[in-house]
């Protein structure tokens, strides 16, 4: 093994071992761009899965045998039926005694309770009692059973109950699947308790669900309940309000009251199994993996950082995309991402991720990728990433790049640099180009539109005459667009103004504004 090999190999292996030891964010953060060499790749995800499974197998082998002797299946069924009938047919202490016996049933009872809860022909009281019993049993199999109920049960009230009870349990092995339910759950009340449950486990992505119920649930009582629960979640950890908590989570800035969780091996195994799914052909599993991994905690960021060294280009790409979507919460992955900046295929996505995770040490490396000779896709991504970093110190490099680029030959690069100049606080050199980009069929207009809106908002905040009115009109143009048809909704998708027409209207609005008002720091400058 060459020194280069051992360096890269050691990085991902070290990251895995570090994670297994329960430490968070083991990767050191360099002051500047490290000396890079091509990373050496290995079947990281499959190796990690095998490693963790072996450890779990060892742990099971050395565990004390259950104090409850196994019983034959027929006997188990007979006993469970009897106890269930007794508990649901009784009240007071008799019920408590029946429930206690159900809770104390042998390990095999979890599967029976799960099946009964999912049995649509079973009595409602029995189905809900199964949830209670599973929670009180409290084991991993019981959490798995509750998770299966949360995924499949009808009516939705059962799913809501399962979510709520999972939030009260200490098991974290099901958190990845629980997070995925944010994508698929369709019942308002169930979404509330799903989001709440995730927050109980320190996954504050769930707060988005709670706040969605608070803001949009048609049942106002439920919306008010969600508002109260969201505030209670914020109060628990000393956040000012639920919105501050939600924003802080995505910025990677939780209040001191939010204690970092030490995750189990089972939790990490789940993460690696989802990461391994990036390699599947069907995008369905890939999309699910991208969705949930980007919404988990810092442990996921560390695991994804290790996955950057996987031999599969799909796993590496999925890992980069998730880190990018995690945003600043994945800040710890910055040094590992930098190692892949010159990967011919992955590099552009790495550059984008470095910007989105807000990793300032990447500034110098990104600026270097604006130099001639860089692959075009990486050049564009590096320019955009500097904008996402938003550092005023990057303006000289961006201006130099703007000077060198031929807007006719490289319109995307020209647009990306111009946008980043706005985000880095130097709009005067960019506005004309961005307004032109709104109607240039060669370019995606929405990114330029976002940069221009940012500029208008800054001007409005600085009370520049006319800026607020233009901003209001700029936003109002979106109202011409019909809402997207969500699954389950009856909203039509045809009609309304097409995005290009909206952006053209915005371009006309802004040209008029810049020409007539010529407000402070917005004077268009022609190169």
């Amino acid at each position, binding site marked *: 093994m060459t020194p280069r090999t051992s360096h890269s190999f050691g990085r991902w292996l070290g990251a895995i071992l570090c994670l297994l030891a329960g430490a968070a964010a083991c990767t050191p953060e360099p002051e500047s761009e490290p000396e890079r060499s091509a990373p050496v790749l290995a079947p990281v995800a499959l190796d990690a899965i095998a490693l963790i499974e072996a450890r779990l197998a060892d742990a099971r082998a050395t565990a004390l045998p259950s104090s409850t002797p196994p019983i034959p299946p027929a006997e188990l069924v007979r006993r469970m039926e009897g106890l269930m009938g007794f508990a649901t047919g009784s009240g007071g202490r008799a019920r408590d005694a029946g429930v206690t016996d159900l809770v104390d049933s042998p390990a095999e009872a979890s599967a029976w309770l799960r099946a009964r809860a999912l049995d649509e022909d079973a009595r409602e009281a029995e189905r809900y009692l199964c949830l209670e019993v599973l929670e009180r049993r409290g084991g991993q199999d019981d959490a798995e059973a509750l998770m299966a109920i949360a995924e499949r049960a009808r009516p939705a009230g059962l799913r809501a109950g399962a979510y709520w009870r999972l939030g009260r349990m200490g098991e974290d092995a099901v958190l990845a699947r629980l997070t995925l339910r944010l994508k698929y759950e369709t019942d308002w009340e169930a979404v509330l308790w799903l989001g709440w449950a995730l927050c109980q486990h320190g996954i504050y992505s769930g707060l988005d669900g709670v706040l969605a119920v608070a803001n949009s649930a048609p049942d106002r009582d439920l919306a008010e309940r969600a508002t109260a629960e969201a505030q209670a979640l914020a109060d628990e950890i000393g956040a000012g309000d639920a919105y501050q908590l939600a924003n802080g989570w995505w910025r990677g800035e939780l209040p001191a009251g939010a204690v970092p969780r030490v995750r189990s091996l089972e939790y990490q195994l789940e993460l690696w199994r989802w990461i391994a799914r990036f390699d599947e052909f069907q995008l369905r599993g890939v999309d699910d993996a991208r969705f949930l991994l980007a919404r988990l905690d810092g442990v996921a960021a560390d695991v994804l950082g290790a996955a950057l060294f996987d031999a599969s280009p799909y796993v590496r790409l999925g890992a980069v995309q998730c880190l990018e979507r995690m945003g600043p919460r994945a800040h710890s992955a910055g040094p590992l991402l930098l190692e892949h900046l010159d990967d011919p295929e992955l590099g552009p996505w790495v550059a984008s991720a470095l910007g989105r995770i807000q990793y300032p040490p990447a500034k110098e490396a990104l600026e270097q990728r604006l130099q001639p000779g860089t692959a075009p896709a990486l050049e564009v991504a590096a320019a955009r990433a500097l904008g996402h970093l938003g550092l005023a110190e990057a303006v000289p490099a961006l201006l130099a790049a703007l000077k060198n680029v031929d807007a006719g030959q490289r319109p*995307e690069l020209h647009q990306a640099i111009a946008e980043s100049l706005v985000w880095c606080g130097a709009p005067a050199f960019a506005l004309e180009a961005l307004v032109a980009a709104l109607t240039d069929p060669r370019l995606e207009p929405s990114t330029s539109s976002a940069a221009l809106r940012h500029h208008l908002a800054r001007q409005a905040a600085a009370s520049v005459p006319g800026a607020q009115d233009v901003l209001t009109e700029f936003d109002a143009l979106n109202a011409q667009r019909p809402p997207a048809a969500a699954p389950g909704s*009856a909203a039509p998708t045809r009609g309304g103004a097409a995005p290009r027409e909206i952006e053209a209207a915005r371009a006309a609005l802004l040209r008029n504004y810049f020409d007539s008002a010529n407000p402070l720091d917005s004077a268009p400058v022609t190169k």
Partner: protein
Amino acid sequence: MNPFRIALGVLAIGVVAWLGFELAGGPSRDGGTSSTPMTFATSADCRQCHAEVYDEWAMSEHANAWTGPEVRLLSMDFANQDCIDCHAPSPVFQSGIGERVRPRNVRQVEGVDCITCHLLPDGGVAGTRSDPRAACRPVARAELSSAEHCAGCHNQHGTVDQWRASRFAAQGVGCIDCHMPHRGGDPSRGRSHASPGGTDIELVRGAIALRGGAQDGVWYVEVENIGAGHSFPTDERSRAADLFWRPQAAQDDAPLPWRHLARLRDPYRTEVDVPTTLLAAHETRRYEVRSGPSDPHRHTLAPVGDPVQGPIEVALFYKRSPYYADPAAPDPEREARLVHRIVLAP
């Protein structure tokens, strides 16, 4: 050997070689003066020589993959980044034939463009024949016309697998035979790059048959997948086909509202209680026309209610967004496209 014969032989070989070269390569589009092949930064570069192909593509759904209003809405202007993989893919030859495509971060507005299908990992261009004198120096690659070439995107919803299970696959009728037909039916004119599909209602009409009759006093309707080499509809789950019926109005009366009979569609993953009702290649499905209610969003499998008496109209509609504004009173003539309409009269 006779020197005349040798000279004649050399001349003949020369002529054959020249003819072979001309026939294989065709005329050089840059006059054969370039010493280095073109490099491609955008699909617009291809237009210089391939104007007809480019213009066909520019009007296609492939060209609209990033800019079409429907995908912009459904993807929230691609804020849903999961859509990028197939709507702005990296070159297929780079990802690997038959492999899942990977997204690109540049030229996204070009959607599924020339470069997506034709660019080789070494910067060369894949074509159906090699032409060392053309500006782009195409290299013949048989994969270009294979179903596997389309699979990276179009098998995400099982379309290529549906085709593999059909008789068309065994007969050697592939994707391009329907979706990239020879221009004007003339192989010498090359294949159309307009890539007609569900947006081409004539193509849909040719693929699906609708007929009906009466049995034991009950109207029935049969819909048959006669020509699609895959299920109908296929690909995106947003696509739906609906059978509607209504009593035939008297000559001077206004037509009555359409009543939903059945739906063909693969539901979204969130629609957990909705069955898949796609019509497989070569499949015929029969529905009795009954008076009971039918909800298009629930994908009716077996119509309910009493048999319908008297003459009726039956129509098959196709739509690319799955939901009707009012599922209790859908208006297919406004919200969908008519594929077939028949009248059943005693």
